[in-house]
């Protein structure tokens, strides 16, 4: 039987991480990976650390504490630019999972189908990591390095996600495709955030998940959207070539070809949704 630490303070947790521990937050990825076997590793339970909780507004934008659950996110009073992330939160598992699963757990688990990731990429989120030796920040895109791998060092904890304040009014949206209504791993999903000035797109970020080892931004599409009028025709700027960063695969949920095709459909619908 391994050790189980449940510190209240961040310092204590970071001190503990000077030796190997498995981090436990909401447990919704931790336990499913351990069905039918004894849990013997040393566990660091971070769910009791006050400093990791809660959502706050800062001068630069917003800070989403690492252990913010999906339900807390949905219920938080946040501007419309967070609508996409909230829509993603409502699509994570069922209600039970949303009540327990955390936002940092989602990115640390680094599943290609993590629903939070495209929405956070669209928000241009940064990941704040802390260790005994100090803190650092990484763009989310450089934090997740591959299928279930991240740039997190063993001694580090994800402390928070930071979302910068946009320069103009911003709106966002998220769409998910799965083979059933609830509790479903995405076949593909997409999220976008557009900054709008004078009815036109000033800047846009678009990300697609489950169509590559790590969810990808689509820079060419983001470029193409700039200057477009924000109306029902926004989706017409979309071209198949914009999907170049994606590299979908065949699996039990869908074929590679299908994923490419539906990514386009989702993106077109997503753009009209955000423009509506």
């Amino acid at each position, binding site marked *: *039987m*391994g050790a*189980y630490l*449940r510190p209240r303070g961040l310092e204590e947790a970071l001190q503990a991480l000077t030796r190997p521990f498995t981090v*436990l937050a*909401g*447990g*919704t990825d*931790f*336990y*499913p990976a351990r*069905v*039918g*076997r*004894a*849990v*013997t590793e040393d*566990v660091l*339970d971070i*769910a*009791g650390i006050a400093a990791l909780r809660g959502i706050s507004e800062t001068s630069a934008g917003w800070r989403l504490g690492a252990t913010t659950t999906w*339900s807390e996110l949905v219920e938080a009073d946040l501007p419309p630019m967070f609508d996409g992330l909230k829509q993603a939160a409502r699509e994570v*598992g*069922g*209600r*039970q*999972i949303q*009540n*327990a699963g955390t936002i940092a757990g989602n990115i640390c688990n680094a599943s290609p189908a993590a629903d939070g990731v495209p929405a956070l990429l669209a928000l241009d989120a940064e990941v704040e990591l802390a260790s005994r030796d100090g803190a650092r920040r990484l763009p989310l895109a450089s934090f997740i390095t591959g299928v279930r791998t991240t740039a997190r060092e063993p001694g580090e904890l994800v402390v928070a996600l930071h979302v910068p304040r946009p320069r103009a009014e911003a709106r966002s949206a998220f769409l998910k*495709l799965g*083979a*059933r*209504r*609830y*509790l*479903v*791993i995405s*076949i593909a999903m997409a999220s976008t955030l557009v900054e709008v000035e004078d009815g036109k797109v000033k800047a846009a970020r678009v990300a697609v998940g489950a169509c590559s080892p790590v969810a990808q931004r689509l820079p060419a599409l983001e470029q193409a959207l700039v200057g477009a009028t924000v109306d029902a025709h926004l989706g017409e700027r979309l071209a198949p070539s914009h999907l170049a960063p994606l590299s979908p695969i065949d699996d*039990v*949920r*869908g*074929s590679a*070809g*299908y994923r490419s*095709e*539906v990514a386009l*459909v989702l993106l077109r619908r997503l753009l009209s949704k955000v423009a509506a």
Partner: protein
Amino acid sequence: MKLEFTLNGRAASWDGAPVTRLASALRDDLGVTGTKIGCDAGDCGACTVLLDGRQVCSCLVAMGQIEGRTVETVEGLEAGPDAMAALQQSFLDHGAAQCGICTPGMLMAAQELVRRNNKPSRAEVEDFLGGVLCRCTGYGKIVDAVMDVVAPTPATASAAGEAVGSRIVRVDGPAKVTGRDLFGADTIPRDALWIRVVRSPHARARFVLGDLEPLRRRLAAVLTAADVPFNGYGIYPDIKDQPVLADGQVRYRGEAVVALVGEHAEVLAIRDDEVPITWTPEPPVFGVDAAMAEDAPLVQADRRGNLLLKGGVKSGDTAAALDACAAVAEGTFETAFVEHAYIEPEAGWARRVGDRIEIHATTQTPYMDRDEIANLMRLKPEAVRIVPTACGGGFGGKLDLSVQPLLAIAAWTLGRPVALVYTRPESMAASTKRHPARVTARFGCDAEGKLLACDVTALFDTGAYASWGPTVANRVPVHAMGPYAIPNVRTWGEAYFTNGPPAGAFRGFGVPQAAIAHEAMMDELADRLGIDRLEFRHRNALRAGDMTATGQTLAHSAGLAQCLDALRPHWRRAHEEIAAFNERGGSHRRGIGIGCMWYGIGNTSMSNPSRMRVGLSPGGTLTLYSGALDIGQGSNTIMVQIAADAVGLPADQFTLVTGDTDLTADAGKTSASRQTFVSGKAAEKAGQDLRQQILRLANAGPDAILSLEGATLSVRDGGEVRTIDLAASGPLMGEGTFDPPTTPLDAEGQGVPYATYAFAAQLAEVEVDVELGTVKVLRIVAAHDVGRAINPTLVEGQIQGGVAQGLGLALMEEYLPGRTENLHDYLIPTVGDVPEIECLLIEDREPLGPSGAKGIGEPALVPTAPAILGAVHHATGVRVHRVPLLPHRLREAIVALERKRA
């Protein structure tokens, strides 16, 4: 670590490893077993509890996180002793619990909602229940129960003689909605040793066991094939081909190889790679083509050509008749392995009592288990006692042995209670599946749309072991022409061994697969002749007086035409609405489809008797001794209703003793939709027998009215009332036996395979997202000829649950060994996927059945997939030849069709 928290309003403390799951701590240490475990992975929601008022999966919460917090479980819902919460009462009244294994989780998920809003909308209810899977109910009655929580419609109680046909609540319902019902994993003694089974990671391999001594020293026992007295079991008396533990060779991924027996934590801590097994994998045989190939390796050495069985039905001259048809349709249709996905994994425990072995486990068939265990253990059947626990769903998958043999062997040799609970992946890998089928059909009709001939060949992948393969291969040819009068028929079935999981019994025994083919043919022929799809079926429906392809004349109760008549107004209305919707254009298109079926009740051409007893004790206790196992479908209640009216006393005066092979007589297995018809008839006869005895004692006439108060039985005959002092008269016992009359089928498949048939027609309305290839089923209307609905609420529950499984078969379910061995890769419908299902009950009485009843369990599922697929065709023009129709498959077919049209 010791910690304090609040459990159901009371202070609780717990001590143990903080990483322990809350679900396990509740069940194993705190003695509240109302919380169920279906997967330990967040996928099923059976373990849902409220943590600080919010629903969570207790299998995903570390005890270390519970300190100081508030936990609520189903046990905390009740307001006091015998005072159910409004939500529980509403579940009970609506018949929202069938097997009841999901019920505690459903209740807790709903509780979070109704506390905030006790008049929730349907959409809100779906959002809150989206994380709890139910495999039995199709969700409709659960959603209704939550929406009606403020003003539940009370279910009826029934007076003497009025039980049959009334909507009385389930007799086992209170236990199910309070979490008190005890399932396979709920009664395990604390001092039990546990088994963990080491299973094959290979589909086909030889293996050698290394030195097991080091493990044996750490554990109570390590069991191998050598420890099994007779290492072969199987459904058929002459096919005992499946080993309890593999002997040097495995034939499917998930096959049991070694059983570790010891303390629970000990066996869990031993990793598979610590068990010395040297594997030599061999190329597996997957699919019937590989199995039939000339140089195919043999899955079982003595099965030439990998063939299990073949046979068919022949009447008239099909080849000649097809040549003469005005229209002929043909097609080939394929289905996948489908998993039962009952929410309760296989579970139980056993102990040795002197020279007997006693097994407490979840099962559908206590007497078959008893005989099979006796055979494996080389004991007399009387030396085996099966005490079935409540069964958390079966659907055919708990007809085969699972935990029982290893439990028996370990408990017998060690002399201690031994427990085994499958994990979800283990349950999925080890248990039987629905047979994958390839059905090739040709149907022809004349210019007026009268069917003249059909030729159907069905090839089945029966997996590594025979299990119920012969039943499927026999049943399908009888049903493969569909519920239609066709003068020239040739149907044929073949089943092949492969290195897939053993395919066994699953709601419908192959008939759902065949129905996909014959119903597609009906649509094509109707379209070709420009006849409405419903009317085409109506024209050809089997009716009373018609002769079937096996030469049986249907004397009574063939209500397909009535079912279609009942659907017609819905069909016409939906056609108009759909046309209007599609007129608007866009990426979503709607369609409507129809599916018909017939289904022979009981075993195919084989004796399948049931025996029932009704006793009246000197103390005045009226007891139905029923060996018919209720696996959620409601037979406990049905049997009581039937027996009550047969005796002439109210149903609520009955006590029920069920399943235990020491206390009840053999009522056969809960399969083939036979319990209402066969055991129900036996219960009726047993009740009548008891009544006769009472009337004789009272010297009263047949119309006398009985009433029972304490130990006094009053018999009112005309104006006269006689009382019988039961204490003086001694115990009375009525008995009844019924075996439906059938005859064997000859070489041409001629004979009387079933005494009666259920008929049904369902329509499905769907909306297809043409760009994404997704299908949303909007509505199902199901018309079923059940002979007589003994309890309409239970019949509707069967229909709705069957429809949900049919929907899964059509759209999402595909078991792939090693790839979809859990409930997040293997998808079954959630509350958001099953539409409203309207049930139309047609009661064309069957004179042989109790009060005219037939069966409903399997018929409910059969027409659904055909109706959905027909609706997809109507919406898109795509004829589906392979299920499940996953979004990418439909999208690819739509693109192919567009290309062809362009």
